[in-house]
């Protein structure tokens, strides 16, 4: 299957800076996939998404969305994508319906009319349909200002799907939402995805949001640290090891060498636990130990550690 998003050797260096905000990254996204770009603040997520959505020109590299080059065919790319921004993109003093209507007209779906009642029948039906879907039948003609944060986000998602984009970009969509709204937004997004088959491209710094994805691309300082399914990324990230030490280090060193157990000295003896369990190692050693410590981090710990060391 041809990828819906192709990124090849993407580099972005902002004017008057000496380092690359995005430093030679490449990846593909298959149609219908739920793809997550994971990384801490300042990792280059927003820069990457800005280039993919044509609002920022890359310094070098190739990016194609739905087969269109983001630099040469930006208008075609824009027609094929929907975006949920980090900052809310609704006009609070306008009604929900007006926010939807203006979007629909900008995407060439309907002609311009001053009021809702003047709009074509098909548009009015569509709005009633969407209102029912959102459970907003009574609020559609109220100012968005009166909506809760979670409701606003849902309205934005509905609106961004109006022109049936092939890819929906979400740039940290849950920032500023409480846990309940966040949960409900994800359930809603899951539903939308199953119904429309839209490819989802998410950026987030929350690991638990990334775990739902088909593919995770973990970046920091503009470079890819890890890429694959959540299981693969987990396996790459988590390093289980055992730390031991003895009063007589020479004896311990000789014994470990004799047993054929690989180790490194940090100055404690660090033994990787992918091949053997901590119990096997300790059982085999006769040298009296002064320190025994296992390191088996949760995914969260591993993520934080990786980000700190990168």
């Amino acid at each position, binding site marked *: 299957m041809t990828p819906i998003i192709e990124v090849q050797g993407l580099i972005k260096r902002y004017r008057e800076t000496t380092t690359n905000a995005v430093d030679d990254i490449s990846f593909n996204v298959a149609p219908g996939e739920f793809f997550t770009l994971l990384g801490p603040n300042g990792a280059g997520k927003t820069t990457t998404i800005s280039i993919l959505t044509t*609002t920022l020109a890359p310094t070098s590299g190739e990016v194609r969305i739905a087969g269109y080059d983001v630099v040469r065919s930006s208008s*075609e790319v824009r027609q094929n*994508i929907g975006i949920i921004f980090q900052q809310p993109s609704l006009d*609070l003093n*306008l009604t929900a319906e007006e926010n939807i209507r203006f979007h629909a*007209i900008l995407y060439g779906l309907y002609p*311009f009319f*001053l009021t809702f009642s003047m709009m074509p029948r098909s548009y009015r039906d569509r709005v009633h349909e969407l209102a029912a879907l959102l459970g907003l039948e009574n609020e559609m003609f109220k100012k968005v200002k009166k909506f809760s944060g979670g409701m606003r986000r849902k309205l934005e998602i509905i609106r961004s799907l109006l022109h049936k984009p092939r890819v929906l970009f979400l740039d940290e969509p849950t920032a500023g939402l409480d846990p309940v709204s966040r949960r409900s937004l994800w359930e809603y997004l899951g539903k939308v995805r199953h119904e429309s088959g839209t490819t989802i491209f998410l950026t987030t710094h929350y690991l638990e949001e990334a775990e739902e994805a088909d593919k995770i691309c973990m970046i920091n300082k503009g470079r890819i640290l890890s890429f694959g399914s959540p299981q693969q990324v987990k396996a790459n990230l988590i390093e289980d090891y055992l730390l031991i030490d003895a009063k007589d280090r020479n004896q311990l060193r000789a014994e470990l060498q004799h047993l054929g157990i690989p180790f490194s000295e940090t100055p404690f003896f660090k033994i990787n636990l992918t091949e053997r369990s901590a119990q096997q190692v300790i059982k085999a050693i006769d040298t009296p130990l002064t320190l025994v410590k296992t390191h088996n981090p949760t995914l969260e710990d591993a993520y934080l550690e990786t980000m700190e060391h990168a």
Partner: protein
Amino acid sequence: MREVYAILTIAYRDLLKLLRDPARLISSLIFPLLFIAILGGSIQSNWGSGLGYNFLTFVFTGVFAQTLFQSAAMGIVSLIDDRENDFSQEIFISPISRYSIILGKIVGETLVALVQGIGIVVFGLLVGVRFSLGQVLGLIVVGVIVCLFAASFGVIILSNLPSRRTADQIFPFIMLPQFFLAGVFNPIKILPPYLDILSRISPMRYAVDLTRGIFYAGNADYPKVVLDTPLLNLTIMVAAFLVFLVIGTFIFVRSERNR
């Protein structure tokens, strides 16, 4: 056709946002009203007889043009931070042409400024400025011209600004001197040569003078108040409009993505 609908949508949104936000409309009128009522009123009461023409009317026409000019120009400059703001983000990532965005914004900010202009006309009537229906119609027509001219000035400023911060810092230096160089509240019929040169390179001067040229047409005070003929002012404004718009739009569209 689609681009036309997009332009109308962008413009209509600007107008609707103003009408839905009465607090913003009122606050935008406070300074013009203070200038007309207090500055115009007090000078007219104290020095009015010595001036030989009604100073309240003089300030009223000046402030009318200045308010429209400033509102339209600043409205365009606001495009600079619109990439991160409310629905404007949507406009920037929609598949419409960048030229349509500028055009829609110009039309929109013109409408917004005209609403303020209507507020000023009503207030002028309340504080005792006298004018005919014909003069009001004249103000509306000249108001549209002033706004379009100011919007093109906004585009050329916008295209040369790197950030909102810079815009906020330099905007007072671009606008405030023009208040005085354009003779909004001070007579500039006679100026020393160095001020005369500065006045002639202030875009606002032509907006104010054209407004007075139309408002005072056929009035005995015309020669005391108006500097150049409306035709001359209009010619300069049309020429500057085209230059500002073409160069400004070109630079803006080019620099928008090359950050």
